[in-house]
């Protein structure tokens, strides 16, 4: 907060200066191209989507604008009574609220491992853990489909060795969602891990030395030194991850096409289907607005939580 205050004073000083008007004009001049781009490619589409969500723009309207109706909130009302939408909302919350924290935990764990002084081949493991993130998703999904195959898959083979019967991972509505969450975590944890490693390396060694002088070990060191020092990184990673998981699309699209029984359909996948498969743009826009609200609420909530923590 203090820093922000200082910055504000600084800006005030500049604008009230003798040459303020000219400088301000120059500043706007420099900002204008970027602002124009943001306006055209961000604000205009957002406003257009909002307006579109109050209409029933569809295939018929595409052919003949005369049958375009302004229907107010009917799209939203229809969504709330549509089991497909409610299912997708539930799945998206599952992706975000279960997959997100799990993913952060896994990447933090991996970061601690590859950052530990005692761990051998640290560079090697960092590369290995980051590899899934840069792998093409479709290729990874194909491999995972093999691994999760009910009869010939590696995963069920392993479970079989432990005496657990085969699980129909992608064909059973109870298991498909967890299976896709697992795959997404595997696919993306390397990215967060790298950020965490960078965060861990900024923690001054003296703090750990001081902590050990006070007799702190393992968990206590982590709880009282690492975690607080990692606070901002953790906040950033959590928000980014939550947003990513709320926008999960490609994994279910490639692995299950949202099935079985729509148990893996996310909001973005539903939006894609409504918009580009069926050309019901009005409904798709309404889904987009709901998703926007959800991401906004999630981000604000998380920021509030982080501030209380600090």
């Amino acid at each position, binding site marked *: 907060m203090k820093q922000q205050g200082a910055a504000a004073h600084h800006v005030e000083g500049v604008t009230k200066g003798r040459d303020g008007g000219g400088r301000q004009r120059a500043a706007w001049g420099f900002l204008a191209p970027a602002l124009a781009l943001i306006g055209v490619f961000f604000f205009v589409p957002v406003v257009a989507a909002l307006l579109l969500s109050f209409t029933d723009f*569809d295939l018929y309207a595409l052919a003949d604008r005369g049958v375009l109706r302004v229907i107010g909130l009917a799209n939203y009302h229809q969504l709330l009574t549509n089991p497909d939408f409610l299912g997708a909302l539930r799945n998206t919350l599952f992706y975000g609220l279960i997959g997100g924290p799990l993913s952060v935990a896994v990447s933090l764990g991996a970061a601690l491992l590859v950052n530990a002084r005692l761990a051998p081949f640290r560079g090697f493991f960092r590369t290995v853990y980051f590899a899934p993130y840069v792998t093409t998703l479709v290729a990874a999904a194909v491999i995972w489909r093999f691994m999760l*195959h009910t009869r010939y898959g590696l995963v069920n083979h392993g479970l079989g060795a432990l005496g657990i019967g085969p699980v129909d991972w992608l*064909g059973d509505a109870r298991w498909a969602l967890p299976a896709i969450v697992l795959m997404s975590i595997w696919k993306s944890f390397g990215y967060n891990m790298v950020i965490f490693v960078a965060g861990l390396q900024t923690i001054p060694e003296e703090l750990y030395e001081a902590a050990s002088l006070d007799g702190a070990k393992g968990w206590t060191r982590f709880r009282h030194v690492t975690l607080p020092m990692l606070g901002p990184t953790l906040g950033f990673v959590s928000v980014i991850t939550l947003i990513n998981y709320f926008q999960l699309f490609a994994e279910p699209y490639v692995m299950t096409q949202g*099935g079985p029984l729509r148990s893996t359909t996310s909001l973005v996948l539903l939006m894609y289907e409504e918009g580009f498969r069926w*050309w019901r743009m009005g409904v798709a826009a309404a889904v987009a607005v709901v998703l926007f609200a959800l991401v906004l609420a999630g981000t604000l909530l998380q920021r509030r939580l982080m501030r209380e923590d600090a």
Partner: protein
Amino acid sequence: MSGSALRRGLVGALVIVAACGRARAPSGDVQLTMWAFGREGEVVQELMRDFEAAHPGIRVKVQQIPWMAAHEKLLTSYVGEMLPDIAQLGNTWIAEFETLDALAPLDSLIAGSRSLSRAAFFPGIWATNVVAGRTLGVPWYVDTRLLFYRRDLFERAGILAPPSTWDEWLVAMRRVKQLTGTPYGIFLPLSEWNPLVIFAMQAGSPLLTPGGLRGAFTDAPFRDAFAFYARIFDEGLAPRAGQQQLANVHQEFARGTFAMYITGPWQLGEFATRMPPALRGAWATAPMPGPRGDSSGISMAGGSSLVMFRGSRHPAEAWALIEWLSQPSTQLEFYRISGNLPPTYAAWQDPLLANNAHAAAFRTQLDRLRPLPAVPEWEQVATKVIEYQERVVRGVLTIDQAVVAMNRDVDRLLEKRRWIAERGQGADPR
């Protein structure tokens, strides 16, 4: 710079721009653009050399588009006014592009054609190209579905002929399962709507009410078909699995996981090459069994049509290409390189098809085809069929609950269609 020089410069620039905008072949020939999908897009290119040789002055650029992306690409191109001169169109999409008014009507061209007549085609497949009395496409190949079965397993179970009624069919599934140790009698993928929809058409269900305004799923014929479908699973005669869970259908068919499979002509080539040598003669095809025997054993008229888009700048040349592709000799050549079955009577009289044992069942089936409902929403309706058949098969819903829910969902999908129909009453129905 003087005014006239400036003007001359501008005119020159405009000419250059205009020349670039025109998609003209270098020699001044007319260049046609054709879109074809998947494997068809690959093989149709081979035919174009012959067409160009027979039609000097016309050149054809074939663009191959993956099937998965085809529908999306067509619609986005319609919005962007970038459609080609002619294209292959899945015949369930015709109604949709008719709604968009993107297709050129062909009736007058067909009436004036010397080489193409409606009577040359199987009526069931021709019907899929007619919407509201106007012909919008010419059938290119037929994609109906029928029964592929393991003849060796049938023989071991003492079944002498493929089933023709639903009752005989159930008996065959049970006997194969009991007497040969095959885990399942038949494979009906839960991820496909075709088997249940075919059963329903066989039982006499129109699927949608007249005009395609509402679902007709609570009617007795659809319920009967659904009961027959669900019974196959309840008796354990088919695996509760989708296409995805059975990694390789050919492998499982060869392995004897199931003895029957409802699929289409593209599998003729696949089965011929993928079955292990020992099983080359062990599989056969049969027309669809029906609830009351042969004549009720109808199937859906799937396939692709050739269409011309309204925006084409070379309609005469585009029509010449459609006429040429529809000649029995061209169709036979297309069958030889692609395995797609031709839709004309004449092509089927050629020894290449007439003497092919596996194709004979398709020839029978071609006389028993029914078009699917011609509404732009059909694909969405079909996904509802998939959703609810799986819920019933997995025991989440009863058939009674499922058909009521299907009607409710489908009525909602067709709401706009009803509104337009009410609004358009009295006016030009187009």
